[in-house]
């Protein structure tokens, strides 16, 4: 059963994606570790870390695409799950510092020492073990998403209302984690990590390893997403997206489906966050910022909603543009980035992948319909209403 379940995930597009990812997972670390510096094929550590970060963003975008692109749940709060996963990993990394902190306290992290915490708060227990932290990475975002979703979907909160309360969720968490009394280091967050699983976190090989781990996680989650979206459940999700009450009248418990995919997506976001933290070296409440969640949605939109590969592409491209612009045009890069968003919406409404595959299909269909006799009145384009049907769910009601 499982094999057929996973086998469904494959087609040409997925094949290309997986091949590229496999190449990257092998070549980038190899280029960094094996090729000597100075060679044109050497990949500098800076680039490895940067690309590793992009991959975690891509995983986050994938998670958002799963709920938004396929189920029509526009989450403006996914960064919260990402950050929670990041915090779980950060807590593990903090505990690994041990006596190497500036105060040399074997148990308490530095920020607790100088703010006079007498002992480790209970919720920090267990995070000195990797397996426990790894479990929490998926469990904490998963449980939060489950509880939040259970209430919200059962109450049939939909559209913008749902989007805005996801913003409220991440905003509330932002404020909560800013509080020093919470015991997560306040604004400074968790930082100054030393090693992960015994490997020096600053070593080139660890960075290459983290890159590879991010790549593998991305591939793994991609395959899961493919399998889910191409299963009958995936069809139900799209049905929910396009005509929620029709789906209900067919006897599907829409809230269960939403809850399933929402929780799954939150767990993926948590994994992304956990891989992000050791690579950038810090986790702080800024990651909960509502604007971050909006940005993720934008990555997905740029790449192409509901295409999975598009989400990955969008995340990598937008972040690459950001990296480039902030260095090349430090004073005016926001013009460039803002302009990019406007241009993409106006001229590539289906995102990059969506537009390309639409063009591809149209080309093929034109060829096909030329082969047959032109008899149909309807142009063989893809449905004009498909995106707007989902958008309609989010459309607010007009004034009375």
């Amino acid at each position, binding site marked *: 059963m499982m094999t057929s379940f996973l086998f469904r995930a494959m087609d040409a597009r997925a094949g290309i994606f997986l091949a590229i990812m496999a190449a990257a997972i092998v070549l980038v670390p190899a280029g960094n570790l094996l090729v000597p510096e100075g060679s044109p094929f050497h990949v500098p550590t800076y680039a490895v870390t940067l690309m590793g970060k992009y991959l975690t963003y891509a995983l986050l975008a994938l998670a958002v695409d799963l709920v938004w692109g396929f189920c029509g749940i*526009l989450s403006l709060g996914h960064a919260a799950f990402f950050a929670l996963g990041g915090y779980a990993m950060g807590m593990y990394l903090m505990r690994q510092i041990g006596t190497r902190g500036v105060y040399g306290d074997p148990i308490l992290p530095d920020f607790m020492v100088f703010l006079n915490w007498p002992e480790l708060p209970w919720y920090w227990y267990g995070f000195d073990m990797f397996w426990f932290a790894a479990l929490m990475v998926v469990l904490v975002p998963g449980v939060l998403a489950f509880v*939040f979703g259970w*209430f*919200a979907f059962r*109450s*049939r*909160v*939909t559209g*913008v*209302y749902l989007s*805005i*309360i996801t*913003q*409220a*969720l991440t*905003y*509330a968490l932002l*404020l*909560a984690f*800013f*509080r020093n009394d919470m015991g997560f280091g306040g604004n400074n967050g968790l930082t100054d990590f030393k090693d992960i699983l015994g490997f020096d976190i600053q070593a080139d090989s660890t960075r290459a390893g983290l890159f590879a781990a991010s790549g593998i996680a991305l591939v793994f989650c991609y395959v899961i997403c493919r399998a889910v979206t191409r299963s009958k459940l995936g069809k139900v999700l799209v049905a929910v997206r396009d005509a929620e*009450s029709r789906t209900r009248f067919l006897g599907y418990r829409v809230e269960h489906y939403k809850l399933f995919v929402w929780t799954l997506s939150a767990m993926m976001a948590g994994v992304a966050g956990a891989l992000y933290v050791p690579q950038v070296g810090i986790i702080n409440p800024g990651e909960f910022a*509502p*604007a971050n969640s*909006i940005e993720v*949605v*934008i990555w997905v*939109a*740029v790449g192409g909603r509901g295409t999975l590969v598009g989400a990955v592409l969008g995340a990598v491209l937008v972040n690459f543009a950001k990296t480039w612009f902030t260095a090349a045009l430090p*004073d*005016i890069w*926001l*013009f460039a*980035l*803002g*302009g*990019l*968003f*406007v241009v*993409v*919406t*106006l001229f590539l*409404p289906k995102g990059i992948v969506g537009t390309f595959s639409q063009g591809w299909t149209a080309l093929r269909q034109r060829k096909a319909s030329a082969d047959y006799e032109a008899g149909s009145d309807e142009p063989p384009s893809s449905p004009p209403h498909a*995106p*707007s049907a989902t*958008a*309609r769910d*989010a*459309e*607010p*009601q*007009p*004034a*009375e």
Partner: protein
Amino acid sequence: MGGTKKFKRLIPRDAAERLLGMRRLTFIRNAGGPMSFSRSLLLFLFLAMGLTAPALAQSDPEALRPLINELAKGKYDDTQKQIGALVATGDPAVAPALEALGDGDLYFRKSDGMVFIASKAGKGYALTDPLTLESAGEAGRRDVKKIKVNNKLRRVLRSALGSLTLMAPDPAVRKQAAEAVFKSRDPDSIEALDAALAAETDDSVRTVMEQARAAAVLNSDLGDEDKLAAVEVLASMGTRQAMSLLLSVQSSLEGPVRDATAAAVTKIEKSIAAWDAAQNIWYGLSLGSVLLLAAIGLAITFGVMGVINMAHGEMVMIGAYVTFVVQEMIRTSMPGLFDYSLFIALPLAFLVSGAIGVAIERGVIRWLYGRPLETLLATWGISLILQQAVRSLFGPTNREVGNPDWMSGAFEVGQMTITYNRMWIIVFAMLVFAGLMLVLKKTPFGLYTRAVTQNRRMAASMGIRTPWVDALTFGLGSGIAGIAGVALSQIDNVSPNLGQGYIIDSFMVVVFGGVGNLWGTLVGAMTLGVVNKFLEPYAGAVLGKILVLVFIILFIQKRPRGLFALKGRAVEA
């Protein structure tokens, strides 16, 4: 000129002049201009002292000069002694110098230690002789040094003035003088107060004087009987100030007076607690009206038109910057208009933000109708661009937007303090809301807007130019946001980040109230404001805000379409 302002309020010009009418002194005529009034005030001060002083020495400027020049030396403690010495001469000719000292305009020349009154002129200073008040040439910025004053010296001056203006002809001045004595609690002024009370005709001034006397009595070494009476006066005052005073003397008292003080404090505390609740509601309404102002434009662009307008905050910001530009122009060309700057800024802010709104609608949003989520993406891009544009144009730092006089200060209602700017903002928010309702319900434009948003195709087929209605509606929402920016510039930073701070709150308000319903926005804003302000004293500002957010999340579970949702079949059509 903080110092000047403070003195100015104490005694109006005409009163001082009437008082001084009989004696024409040369330096007053010489002084002329706007300065003359505070000079006369100080003169009055010395005249008043002269009544008790043994002799009013006739001025010989050169005899005083060494004393004046002394001011250039030493530290604050020395300055205090030097001021005392100057006052002791009883010579009115020292007044201008002291007044300049209070304003921070007294300088000394480094080369010879001579003291001058200096005012900025070009890159350097124009010097005035502090005794003859004749021009004494100019000096470079580095040639002179300011004689410093600090809070302590300002306090010394304030209390001195207080006990000496108790007999002024203007009741308002007498009242302020009595209030100053109340703050200084100087036992030496009891005598002066008794004299003033005997002559006092105005009841409200008399009350304040009695309170001031009570304050001074408690601070003196008079007998228990006097003190008990004083405690009673203060207890009936019931204010925080009175409580503060009672608490401060409590430890130095004994026996029945001490008990009476304790009882009085308890009594005041009780009455204050009741007022606190009222004050909290006021704060809540005030916060609510800020939220309303921030959200009401969004209630149109998002609520009515369905555009997820992430650039809404930037429209507010642009309104604030319009206010800045208007004030800047007024400052440089017609300073007299400053008090009207907001009225000039309002229509301009509406037009500028509105025009930008129309441009955005025509340029971008009109291509995106029916795809609200894509408006989110595009308007997010626009908001980045607008922020950066303002940053490039006006710089990244805060710009100063001043409060006109009628927006400054506060007044008391019972034990509640109401600041003028908050009060006007509440009034303004209500006016904007009422105006908007009027436009939407009673004008043809409003009718068109409602028609188009309800059924675009039908409206179009009835001959309404839907594209223009769209553009103007978006312009209206943006213009309203611009107006909100004028109001918010009075209480918040004017910086490129201004809009970012309000965007999330605005969305919360609109969604909480029920998308598409202006009344919902009003009630939503006020509810969130009041809830927030009632939570804040118990939970603290941070936790209070978190609780409000959790409240919104839970509330939406209960009413998935906001406070004022439409019911029935139409909702899911």
